[in-house]
């Protein structure tokens, strides 16, 4: 049995933030119907590559975000198409969309309209800038991330601001929306009524910045909002360092015990008795000198050697790995954070990002990769919504379905 079995979700979303919200629900067994435009479907189907790379042989972007889902092609510009949508809403628990409010209004898919069709419906949106307010402009992950301030604080001073990674904020908004939908479903048990929820890209990304944004709000200090050099850390024992071959991340609290053990691990080059560094306060005040010294000393050995010594000394540290190393990381495989699954498009197993949350008795699963456009349209009409085959032929003639 799956945790969310029996929950039906109408997933009228495109690109990433909306679709991935529904993907979290689908992973735990909700029946998710990705409703798409008949002609070319979700725009995400067209994203086959990024970073000017050659296109891979399978459509990894769309297929992974939309795994475990069905696809229904509906022309919502037609009245007949909208009538199908209303009947689908009658039979569903959740409506999820990241289309613009103008678009939803034009297609008569507003909350008022759908709640009138099904009062138990959870009506979920992932807007750009929030349910309230006047901000009205396009919202893509990076342009909204730019507004939050999270990009401006990363990197060395004078370097360009840094984007947290492709779709990093969308991924968070999607996760927030999935959580919010479950909150509303929970509440529905008590009230018998659905409600409206929104997890915006702006709101999610501000929360994503919490560790430093909260400190900035409290103190107003640019220490939290502007770029800080790694050569001037608050704690020089908790910092990135270059070694002879690779970068490492050293995470040692700035106390007497950590300092003693670190110095011992450094061997002959140890600055243990250097009077500039012999108390935590001095190490903090002379951080730049200490970073320079450690840069020099650590360049004397390979990362593997330092990590071995620090493990023996009981000090926390890690290689700064690259994506190729992550792809081979046993820890990621053992916990199903990476998985293999069959891909019909290329008739072989492919590697995908897996299941970040584990439920011991009702675990998530990847049962299929993303659907072909409209592959389930007729079956949903017939089996779930009770249309006859004659009616289905008529809907085709009217252009409501392809």
């Amino acid at each position: 049995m799956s945790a969310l079995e029996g929950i039906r979700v109408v997933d009228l979303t495109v690109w990433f933030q909306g679709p991935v919200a529904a993907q979290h629900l689908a992973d735990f067994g909700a029946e998710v119907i990705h409703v798409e435009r008949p002609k070319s479907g979700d725009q995400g189907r067209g994203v086959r590559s990024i970073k000017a790379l050659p296109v891979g042989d399978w459509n990894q972007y769309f297929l992974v975000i939309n795994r475990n889902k069905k696809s229904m092609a509906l022309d919502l510009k037609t009245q007949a198409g909208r009538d199908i949508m209303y009947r689908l809403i009658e039979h569903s628990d959740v409506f999820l969309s990241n289309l613009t409010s103008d678009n939803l209004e034009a297609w008569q898919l507003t909350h008022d309209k759908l709640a009138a069709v099904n009062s138990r419906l959870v009506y979920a949106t992932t807007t750009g800038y929030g349910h309230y307010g006047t901000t009205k402009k396009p919202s893509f992950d990076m342009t909204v991330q730019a507004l939050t301030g999270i990009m401006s604080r990363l990197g060395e001073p004078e370097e360009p601001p840094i984007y947290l990674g492709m779709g990093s904020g969308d991924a968070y908004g999607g996760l927030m929306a999935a959580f919010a939908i479950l909150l509303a479903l929970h509440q529905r048990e008590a009230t018998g009524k659905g409600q409206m929820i929104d997890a915006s890209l702006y709101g999610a990304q501000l929360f994503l910045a919490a560790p430093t944004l909260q400190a900035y709000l409290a103190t107003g200090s640019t220490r939290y909002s502007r770029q800080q050099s790694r050569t001037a850390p608050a704690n020089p024992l908790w910092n990135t360092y270059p070694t002879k071959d690779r970068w490492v991340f050293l995470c040692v609290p700035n106390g007497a015990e950590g300092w003693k053990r670190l110095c011992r691990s450094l061997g002959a080059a140890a600055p243990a008795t250097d009077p500039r560094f012999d108390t935590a306060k001095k190490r903090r005040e002379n951080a730049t000198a200490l970073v320079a010294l450690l840069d020099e000393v650590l360049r004397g050995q390979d990362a593997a050697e330092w990590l071995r010594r620090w493990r023996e000394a009981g000090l926390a540290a890690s290689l700064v790995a690259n994506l190729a190393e992550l792809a081979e990381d046993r820890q990621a495989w053992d916990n199903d954070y990476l998985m293999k699954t069959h891909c019909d498009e290329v008739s072989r197993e492919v590697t995908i990002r897996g299941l970040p949350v584990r439920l011991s008795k009702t675990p998530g699963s990847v049962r299929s990769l993303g659907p072909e456009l409209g592959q389930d349209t007729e079956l949903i009409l017939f089996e779930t919504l009770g249309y006859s085959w004659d009616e289905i032929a008529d809907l085709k003639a009217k252009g409501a379905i392809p």
Partner: protein
Amino acid sequence: MSRALGGLLVVDLTVEFWGSLAGAMLGDFGASVVRIDALGAPEPQRDDEPAPAWNHRAELVHRNKASLAVDLMSERGRDIVRVLASKADVVLTDRPRAQLQTLGFDYESLAALRADLIYARGSGFGPEGPDRDLPALDELAAARTGMMPILPQPGQPPVYPGHGQMYTTIMLAFGIMAALHHRRRTGEGQQVDTSLLAGNMYGASLDLQAFLAIGGERFLHPISRLDAGNPMSGTVYMSEDGLWVTLTMPDTDRWWPEFAPLVGLDVVDPRFDSHEKRCGEHRLEMMRVLEQAFRTRPAAHWRQVFLEKQLSADVIEDYAFPAADPQVYRNRYIVALEHPSLGAVKTLGFPIFMSDSPARLFRTAPCRGQHSFEVLHDVLGYGEDDITALRDEGTIA
């Protein structure tokens, strides 16, 4: 207005920022969250800053919680926590496995007292595998995730972004809700697990998945910002006053007619008159042209014209911007609150909107032990004399 999680009792055995915040997320929606403050054990403090006048981290991650201060070194103290857990719907923790076993707060021990318990634990690296007991530090998980080397410009040190733990926070909350859904229908409780590695990896979703499918050196080393795949998407350019602007217009054909004149280009310029040319043979040339064009006007100008033309582009701000943005306050993403001794302060608010059961600030973060009496008396049914005796002997505070 109702509470989405009204009636839900959560025992919060967390110690980390991201773990405690998951408890606050449940409290925001009306769950009764009882935080266990271990007597005599200070909060883990690792960044050596002088303590601020206002503990703003605690204010965020412990809001909407009650605090029960207990001596976990005493058997009697641990028993109090176990009895509380036996009455709880959810136990939430981010403590190491060995410590939970020693305290008798592991899943097996607590599920023996309450079979349908939902036991959620966040760790550093997941419940399986050789590194499952490494410390739960976001820095270690981020270092392992593979993004740090490719975030900066070429030749720059790797960058620790610090946000990976925030995915883990919501994953814990999401997992708890999924488990509650299952319990409601079947009566069955279970364990919920996630980790900082899971959070960091999920945050890297699109880069990671593209690498897994396509591979290649371009994912392993930083790419210069002037060597982007699409000059009009995912790019940053400096404006005249030193502020940066960023563009996300992946389908360039759609935006080109409005965009080209803004940067002084002819829509029919034969170098750039198709998506293929802009992102293909004339890609680098176009980036050089844009680099010069954006430097001719200040950021405020660019914001104005982007807005007028409704382009997908904006100015890269710092935290001062959201801290003053009316849109942020209108949606309660940041809220102002009255602090008893500091007056008006700002704190992060609520990222989720719910029309009928919105998140609320029911109470600010408690002092340690502020609700010990209330929890023992009202939830566990202790008499006043018993509570006084426990306090006198130092089991609670």
